[in-house]
């Protein structure tokens, strides 16, 4: 399938679903509007709201706050995950001792921690960063742990036969292997950093995308809720694109997945 055809079909999906939304919320069927605009808003209202936010410039500050929170959560969570992942993978005893606790904390729905973080760290950005860190940390930690554990025994033996000492094994074998696993989960962990930030804002804050959505919801401003969701989606797609660019640069050594063009 050619690129143009694919793009056309992708646009078609958007046009059809937005068109259906528009028709169902504005055109009466048998004298009755199926989706009352009070609950579902209309595409035009949502579009107008988004244009208003950007033309007035009020949205940029909120986007910036969310971006800062997500970035901090990603960086702190990743550094922690890499360090602990390496430590556990190289010290099986430590891993065995902490295993049940790691599983326990990871099984906990992180949303319940949000009020505690708000209590400890206040309503500023740090309570949101903390929530994001608890999400990102475990993804990176599990991947780095796996990456270090799953280094091919043959590659490891080869490295040792080529004369590497423990420190050189770390640098030339374990570290690249762990990094490749970490980068393979980059999309997920960046996504969770944003989730942590937005959920944190939603549950209690004075700025950010989650705050906008929560404020709109509080006054039954459905157009505002939907507009916030659209901006959030665009924001995530932009970040995801940036991650793809970084990934392609850092993982040149990896075989591309089988060519999917038909």
């Amino acid at each position, binding site marked *: 399938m050619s690129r143009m055809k694919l793009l056309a079909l992708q646009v078609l999906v958007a046009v059809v679903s937005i068109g259906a939304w528009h028709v169902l919320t504005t055109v009466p069927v048998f004298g009755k509007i199926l989706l009352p605009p009070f609950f579902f808003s209309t595409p035009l209202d949502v579009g107008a709201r988004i244009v208003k936010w950007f033309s007035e410039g009020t949205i940029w500050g909120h986007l910036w706050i969310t971006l800062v929170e997500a970035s901090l959560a990603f960086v702190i969570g990743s550094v922690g995950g890499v360090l602990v992942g390496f430590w556990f993978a190289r010290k099986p005893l430590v891993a065995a001792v902490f295993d049940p606790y790691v599983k326990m904390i990871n099984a906990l729905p992180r949303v319940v921690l949000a009020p505690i973080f708000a209590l400890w760290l206040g309503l500023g950005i740090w309570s949101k960063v903390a929530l994001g860190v608890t999400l990102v940390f475990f993804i990176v930690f599990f991947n780095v742990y796996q990456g270090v554990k799953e280094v*091919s025994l043959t590659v490891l033996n*080869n490295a040792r036969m*080529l004369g590497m000492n423990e420190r050189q094994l770390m640098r030339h074998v374990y570290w690249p292997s762990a990094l*490749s696993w970490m980068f393979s989960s980059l999309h997920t962990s960046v996504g969770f950093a944003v989730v942590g930030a937005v959920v944190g804002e939603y549950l209690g804050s004075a700025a950010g995308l989650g705050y906008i959505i929560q404020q709109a919801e509080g006054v039954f401003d459905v157009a505002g809720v939907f507009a916030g969701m659209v901006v959030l989606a665009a924001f995530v797609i932009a970040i995801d694109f940036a991650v793809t660019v970084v990934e392609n640069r850092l993982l*040149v*050594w*990896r075989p591309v997945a089988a060519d999917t063009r038909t």
Partner: protein
Amino acid sequence: MTARAVGMSSLGVTAMSKEAIVGRTPAEAVALSDVTISFQLANRAVYTAVEQASLSVADGEFVAIVGPTGCGKSTLLNVAAGLLSPSAGTAAIFGTPLRGLNRTAGYLFQQEALFPWKTARDNVAIGLEVAGVSAAEAHAKADAWLARVGLAGFGPRYPHMLSGGQRKRVGLAQVLIRDPKILLMDEPFGPLDAQTRQIMGNLLLDLWSADRKAVMFVTHDLEEAIALSDRVVIMSAGPAARIIGNWRVPLPRPRDISEVKLDPAFHQLHREIWQMLKDEVLKGYAQTGGG
């Protein structure tokens, strides 16, 4: 019938190992004596892979080890590499008992052993770099070695961009750049197609003839073994595999693999060895549940 054949071949072992011990200088490149290797299985049973194997490789000698699948050939090689310590018996390298890794040996593995995150050049250079050679010098030497194995200009490629045969060439360069005194090879050309194997065999003989390292070459392909080596050692089917045969290969060098296979002496030797190996291969199949 099979039982009788085993009895006879174990007599052969005793005779052979005596000759091996008495007839050579103490500075054998590799001397394995009465090596037994057992593993503790999960159910606490003990599995003996190799039993009382004695094998020595003289400096500059090319020895091929042939045996049925799963007979412990690779295990024996790992002992010589120092990756595995034998449960009983001793391993000596140039007269010194082996402790820890064998620093004088280069090991070419059967499976993929290149670092996938390094380019071909970095893969070849790494053995020098970790030994403290400057990056510039290591890279220059790596390029020279890539050229010697026929991969000039392939330096910037990553392993996944190379074919199986090319990866083996990189592996060969990676091992040889460190100039090991002993070369251990574990079915290195096993996964390659027949034509590529022949080309790789000739390349190996070519490189080897330049400075005649001691070589232990494990294979299950008898033709390859005879074509390449000075001496062919036969192992019995596992478990508790033993060394049951030892043949000198009288073919002149330098050899070309495709031509040497047409030599009547090659056929004579092949027939003789195959007589013994055939029984072991069938036994091996019986134990592993068929081929």
